[in-house]
């Protein structure tokens, strides 16, 4: 008998059926991973049987011989406290802010009725999940810890009462790329050590395939297919799975065919960006330090780094929407002035695209006004009819129909909104796009389509791209060269394939390992 078995699960919220016909099993000591995009119902599937989502579950859910479907409130609580441990996506918010790490860990250890653990035992638990200075951490409040450290505390708390099933809902998605592999390895070790069954939820196939024994692919609230991980990866039965696998960038896939770059277009020379510390405190935060990068005409440069590495700050400086405190940005050899001094002709050269597609569009505006906003300023000679015509053209270029022009941003999906943002960026015929994590917030299938769109725009118009990302594998699909940033400095750069094969700097090695 399996440790945990779901049969014909359906989940309803407010009368709407959001998940149906999902069946899966988790064996003791093994990992079953649910893979799906946003709206696939993967989180509902794993949380609702335990009463941790607003939904109502029906079907059969049997954990260690207990039927969760027929359990009342009290029995369900009992099952949660004895049998399961949970790790959630957001380590920043998942711990109670006003309780120390030690008291929360102690509460977790005692949840199944065990006696109060000694301070030494608590410290050992933290050490087991790889935290140094464990004793000191016990008295700290969660906000003193980094994201990765907090997630380790969450894991320690999730297994402190010796559960049989560990449920991990996107445990690494909110973490820095270079930490993800470490956390997944830790979960693997603990699973083996305690013979834990694990139900893992993720949107990212690449991050789980090395860790899951069983794979369950979900889309739109339904099960697409399930089976042993190796079988599904190598011989997917369903078209959706095939497309998902194809859309997931990996480092061992065939290198892309990219155009030949031309003359140098943009250079940064010793660029530094400093911010004053918040409040009246003196001193500066150095976000970017002596950065030198160069992009040729028709070339894509990947600017890769973890969060806080300064990559976005450098991107904004280049796009003229962020400060530059020292050094020089040059366009075809001539200096480009800072943010406030850029004239319209200079603005027209470089356009940005951002991570969050919904926040990139003014919610009060119609799509047509959004897309044609650059034309109003950068091409003041145009009359309204021409602007409309160009907006239509731009929409076609990003594979949207022209009836999107009259829609409001709120009615667009993430992928559609990102296409609108790209249409706005290309409408005034710029030569360089600064793409700040432009595909990171999108589902893998949609993200892959956006990457294809960018490749096509480059091939058609000779566009240069600055592709800012934490994801080396995604960058490899469209970029000629790579520059790696850490703590504000460019620590390594070179041809994409060469750097991936022989990463020199430890930061590069971590990022490559995480992809």
């Amino acid at each position: 008998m399996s440790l945990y078995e779901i049969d014909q699960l359906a989940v309803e919220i407010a009368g709407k059926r959001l998940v149906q016909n999902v069946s899966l099993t988790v064996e003791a000591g093994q990992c079953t991973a649910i893979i799906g995009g946003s709206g696939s119902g993967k989180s509902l599937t794993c949380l609702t049987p335990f009463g941790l989502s607003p939904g109502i579950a029906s079907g059969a859910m049997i954990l260690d011989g207990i039927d969760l479907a027929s359990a009342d409130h009290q029995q369900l609580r009992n099952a949660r406290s004895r049998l399961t441990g949970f790790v959630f996506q957001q380590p920043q918010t998942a711990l109670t802010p006003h309780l120390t790490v030690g008291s929360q860990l102690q509460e977790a250890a005692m949840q199944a009725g065990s006696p109060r653990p000694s301070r030494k035992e608590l410290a050992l638990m933290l050490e087991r999940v790889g935290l140094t200075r464990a004793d000191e951490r016990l008295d700290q409040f969660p906000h003193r810890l980094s994201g990765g450290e907090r997630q380790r505390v969450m894991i320690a708390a999730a297994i402190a009462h010796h559960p049989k099933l560990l449920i991990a809902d996107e445990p690494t998605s909110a973490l820095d790329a270079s930490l993800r592999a470490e956390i997944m390895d830790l979960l693997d070790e603990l699973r083996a050590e305690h013979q834990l069954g694990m139900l893992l939820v993720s949107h990212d196939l690449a991050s789980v395939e090395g860790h899951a024994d069983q794979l369950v692919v979900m889309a739109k609230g339904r099960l697409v297919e399930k089976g042993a991980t190796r079988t599904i990866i190598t011989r997917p039965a369903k078209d959706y799975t095939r497309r998902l696998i194809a859309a997931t960038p990996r480092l061992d896939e065939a290198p892309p065919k990219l155009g030949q770059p031309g003359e140098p277009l943009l250079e940064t020379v010793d660029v530094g960006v400093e911010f004053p510390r918040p409040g009246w405190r003196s001193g500066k935060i150095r976000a970017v330090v002596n950065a030198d990068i160069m992009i040729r005409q028709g070339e894509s440069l990947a600017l890769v780094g973890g969060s806080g590495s300064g990559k976005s700050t450098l991107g904004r400086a280049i796009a003229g929407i962020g400060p530059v405190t020292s050094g020089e940005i040059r366009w075809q050899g001539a200096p480009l002035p800072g943010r406030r001094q850029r004239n319209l002709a200079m603005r027209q050269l470089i356009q940005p695209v951002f991570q969050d597609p919904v926040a990139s569009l003014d919610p009060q505006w119609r799509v047509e006004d959004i897309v044609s906003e650059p034309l109003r300023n950068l091409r003041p000679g145009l009359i309204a009819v021409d602007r409309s015509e160009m907006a239509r053209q731009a929409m076609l270029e990003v594979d949207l129909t022209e009836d999107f022009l009259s829609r409001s941003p709120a009615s667009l999906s993430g992928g559609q909104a990102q296409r609108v943002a790209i249409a706005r960026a290309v409408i005034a015929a710029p030569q360089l796009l600064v793409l700040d994590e432009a595909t990171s917030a999108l589902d893998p299938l949609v993200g892959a389509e956006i990457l294809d769109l960018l490749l096509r725009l480059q091939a058609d118009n000779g566009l240069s791209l600055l592709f800012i990302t934490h994801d080396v594998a995604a960058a490899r699909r469209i970029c000629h060269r790579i520059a790696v940033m850490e703590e504000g400095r460019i620590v390594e750069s070179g041809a994409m394939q060469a750097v991936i094969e022989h990463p020199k700097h430890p930061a590069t090695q971590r990022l490559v390992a995480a992809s």
Partner: protein
Amino acid sequence: MLKRHLPLALVLLIAALALLLPFFLPWSYDQIDWDAVRAPAFSEPHIFGTDDIGRDRLARLAAGTRITLLVAMAAALVSLVVGIAWGATAGWIGGKVDELMMRIVDGLYALPFMFIVILLMVVFGRSILLVFVGIGLVEWLTMARVVRGQVMALKQRPFILAAEAAGTPSTTIVLRHILPNIAGVALAYLMLTVPQVVMVESFLSFLGLGVQEPLTSLGILVKEGADDMDMAPLGLLLPGGLLVLILVCLTIEGERLRDRFS
């Protein structure tokens, strides 16, 4: 629609009555009916009776409500203009300027404000204009804080950065992107400022520091009623009840609006 916005409809009805009643009543609010001093309620021709010197209660209520609402609207508008200008400037410029401007707001917040207003009234004489300028200048603080918070949040949004990259001038960004996006919240807080102002104005008038005779306001009526309540409780209960009703209705509407926009 009417059922949902019953509180607002009630206030509008009260305002309409206050404006129109004088045209239908044979008595003006400061006219003394020597034949009917201290007339009880429902005695012809005074529906709510007369006060201790024979003035018609209904006419006085209408006049008081008129002034109270007028002062409230004018002062709320002052607070709206000052609050948005201050908050938007601090939020948009940011950095040390913002730090300084918001410290000033924080400092003013910590003041015993009513006392400063009272001082103002004493110093500059008790004119109705000063009443609402004074109150408006007090009540802008919350508006400034809210607007500043909204602008700070909006400024970080990528669509503002995209507009800058698209060459949109700063003033256009503020007018076309920022202001439309904070309008809803500003409206909600404007709505919530009105009852605040009604409260302050009545408070000042109650103490004899606000609206002056021969003009009257709900606060003055409450004061007159309180002084005479052992003889004629109606004189206190009528204006007091009306004032509370207006305050409750405006607060409910304002809070609904605020919850919708935030």
